[in-house]
């Protein structure tokens, strides 16, 4: 008996690496500390009632934000481990298998479990406030989306200590990801972590399309809608078309592994290249899914901090919509070197260059908005200004990669690595950070400290260029991606060392930001006005942090940048306040079903990862029961009485 347990545990848990034992210890200690604190201060009930069962979009947004910052930490540690291994030739810091696992988890986590939830966090925190709504269209589904993401991410991260990490690259190309070459649970963790969180992403896409189309405040026509909300609409349209492709592709890969099917195998009529074709049909729109909301953030930030209306509003909207459609016509540029007909290559090379045009239009619009504006260099604006040159270089190297004959030289070299990090960090991460700094006071009621933030900003920015500029050169010198080590004879050691120094500078930047957040909780400048940046859109017309029902009275929108127009009218003395008429507010009730149902999904994923069908069956039954119970719940909403609204507003310093 004891021998059986020992044998099971030796394959079930990841063993043999001191780094992982260290991680095991720290994970256990962290969990114990959390349990201890929650029990000591009797916070379990509070946690369940206020957070785990909440359907409030602002709280769901905060939970997305916290999870994504944790994932940024984990993905960042992965990156630093890789850079340490590559700092000098012939290092033995990580062995080859461990290095493979780390670059795989770094990529998957950064895109799917860091960028996506940070984006959804911003959607949730901002969109309903910006369009004058009291919640999203489907609050219950919104909570379900979050918990599906969270448990999918936890399932994926579990592979690190249980069963072994996936190590076939962040998109797990077959045949490497098939059973022959990747036996064991690692690849299954990858499949199910993404599958489960992918369902949540799809639901969020639907939720925000409906929210934006159906729940805008009266008077806010689409042509008066703020640009961030437009960017969310654009991104959500891409999500609902792209994520089903991902789900199907990975389901087929799972059938190959689990049921012995032959979709992507080398024999039996399968075709591994078909997997690349399908996964990039999702993968290319995916990069636009994450970057378009960043464009929306920059549009808001540039207008606010230049104190001008955004230049070329209509062209901005058109650019985002054109990107949403055109992003579905460029996927084959990810595998030009597969070898296909010249007409295919020509088509996809041209479509890739064409999509750079609307992006260029947007950059010019931001520049023209700043032109003759009264720019104040607050933190959100700093990140926006840093973004423009960074994204410009990233975009230019992207067009270089789109030139198909030249791509045969660059393909899978460090040139490519530098390019996509430049657009993803310079575009997505800088954008989301700008958005977090910008909307932080609205969520939490205080600003993040300027001084520490500036230290973080400069470490991030200087570190970024030191890290990635050498990688362009390394690509030209013949260094391809995913090398776990290299010899002295290659002449790559100087640039690799420089690159590693830059990566650690970005790490220091992140530490400054964590310090900044913890410092600002106590000492940050409190926002008593609700409008700390003198901004333009509706979310700034309500107190910070926003009350749970958002708007005491539904705003009547008359023009674009309505809050700015209201403030101008007040300053001119032409403002005529509408008589306030309070009504009971209709709100959704909290529900425990999302977290319970997602836990059953976790069981499904965990069971199928290890081939324990009985566990998956329990999970499926649990999911079905949850859906059944929810279908027959009719008591899902309530009304906030006028008295309570009046009291809440008064406590926030607003007299109605």
């Amino acid at each position: 008996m004891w021998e059986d347990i020992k044998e099971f545990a030796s394959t079930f848990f990841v063993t043999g690496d001191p780094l992982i034992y260290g991680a095991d210890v720290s994970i256990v200690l962290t969990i114990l500390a959390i349990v201890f604190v929650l029990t000591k201060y009797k916070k379990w009930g509070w946690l369940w009632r206020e957070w785990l069962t909440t359907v409030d979009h602002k709280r769901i947004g905060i939970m997305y934000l916290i999870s994504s910052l944790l994932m940024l930490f984990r993905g960042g540690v992965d990156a630093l481990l890789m850079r340490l291994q590559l700092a000098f030739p012939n290092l033995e810091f990580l062995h080859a298998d461990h290095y493979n696992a780390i670059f795989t988890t770094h990529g998957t986590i950064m895109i799917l479990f860091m960028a996506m939830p940070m984006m959804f966090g911003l959607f949730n925190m901002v969109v309903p406030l910006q369009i004058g709504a009291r919640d999203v269209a489907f609050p219950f589904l919104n909570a379900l989306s979050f918990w599906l993401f969270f448990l999918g991410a936890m399932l994926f991260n579990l592979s690190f200590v249980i069963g072994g990490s996936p190590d076939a690259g962040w998109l797990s190309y077959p045949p490497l990801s098939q059973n022959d070459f990747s036996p064991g649970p690692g690849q299954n963790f990858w499949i199910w972590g993404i599958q489960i969180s992918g369902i949540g992403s799809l639901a969020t896409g639907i939720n925000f399309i409906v929210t934006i189309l159906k729940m805008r405040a009266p008077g806010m026509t689409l042509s008066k809608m703020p640009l961030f909300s437009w960017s969310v609409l654009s991104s959500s349209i891409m999500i609902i078309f792209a994520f089903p492709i991902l789900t199907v592709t990975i389901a087929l890969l799972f059938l190959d592994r689990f049921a012995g099917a032959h979709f992507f195998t080398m024999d039996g009529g399968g075709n591994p290249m078909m997997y690349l074709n399908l996964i990039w049909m999702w993968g290319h729109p995916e990069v636009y899914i994450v970057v378009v909301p960043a464009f929306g953030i920059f549009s808001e930030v540039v207008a606010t901090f230049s104190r001008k209306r955004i230049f070329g509003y209509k062209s901005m909207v058109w650019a985002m919509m054109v990107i949403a459609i055109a992003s579905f016509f460029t996927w084959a540029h990810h595998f030009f070197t597969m070898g296909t007909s010249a007409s295919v290559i020509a088509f996809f090379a041209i479509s890739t260059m064409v999509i750079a045009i609307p992006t260029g239009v947007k950059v010019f619009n931001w520049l023209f908005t700043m032109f003759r504006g009264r720019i104040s260099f607050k933190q959100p604006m700093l990140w926006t200004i840093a973004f423009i040159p960074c994204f410009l270089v990233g975009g230019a190297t992207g067009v270089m990669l789109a030139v198909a004959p030249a791509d045969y030289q660059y393909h899978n070299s460090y040139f490519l690595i530098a390019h996509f990090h430049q657009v993803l960090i310079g575009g997505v991460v800088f954008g989301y950070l700008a958005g977090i700094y910008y909307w932080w006071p609205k969520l939490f009621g205080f600003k993040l400290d300027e001084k520490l933030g500036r230290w973080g900003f400069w470490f991030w920015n200087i570190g970024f260029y030191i890290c990635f500029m050498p990688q362009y050169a390394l690509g030209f010198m013949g260094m391809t991606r995913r090398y776990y080590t290299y010899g002295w004879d290659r002449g790559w050691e100087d640039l690799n060392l420089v690159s590693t120094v830059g990566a650690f500078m970005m790490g220091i930047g992140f530490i400054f930001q964590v310090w900044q957040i913890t410092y600002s909780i106590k000492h940050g400048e409190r926002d008593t006005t609700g409008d700390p940046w003198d901004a333009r859109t509706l979310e700034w017309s309500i107190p910070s942090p926003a009350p749970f029902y958002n708007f005491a009275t539904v705003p009547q929108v008359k023009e674009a940048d309505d809050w700015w127009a209201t403030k101008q009218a007040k300053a001119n003395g032409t403002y005529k306040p509408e008589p306030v008429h309070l009504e009971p507010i209709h709100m959704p009730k909290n529900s425990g079903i999302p977290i319970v149902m997602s836990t059953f999904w976790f069981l499904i994923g965990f069971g199928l990862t290890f081939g324990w069908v009985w566990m998956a069956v329990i999970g499926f039954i649990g999911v079905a029961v949850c859906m059944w119970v929810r279908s027959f719940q009719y008591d899902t909403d309530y009304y906030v009485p006028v008295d309570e609204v009046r009291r809440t507003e008064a406590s926030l310093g607003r007299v109605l």
Partner: protein
Amino acid sequence: MTQHQNHGDHNHGSLKSYVIGFILSIVLTIIPLVLVMNQMMEKTALVITIMVMAILQFVVQLFFFMHIREGEKPRYNVQTLILGLVIVFTIVAGSIWIMMFNKY
């Protein structure tokens, strides 16, 4: 007004129509599976049959589950349907076009 009544404002199909749609979808999925498993057709005919089944199932889902005929503003439905068709066409035709590389 309870949520239940809110949802009762629009007619989202009956139990009967859902069951019919479900059965049709299952049948249209099983036919290609049986054809392939038992190797009942030669290759070209098989590929064409599978595609026809796929298109039929697409139509079934649109009518029985997506309620393409309902809604206040059919114009939106038509717009999104056209966009969806463009993307579906791109996925299918694009894959075939790209994957023909070993046939010439």
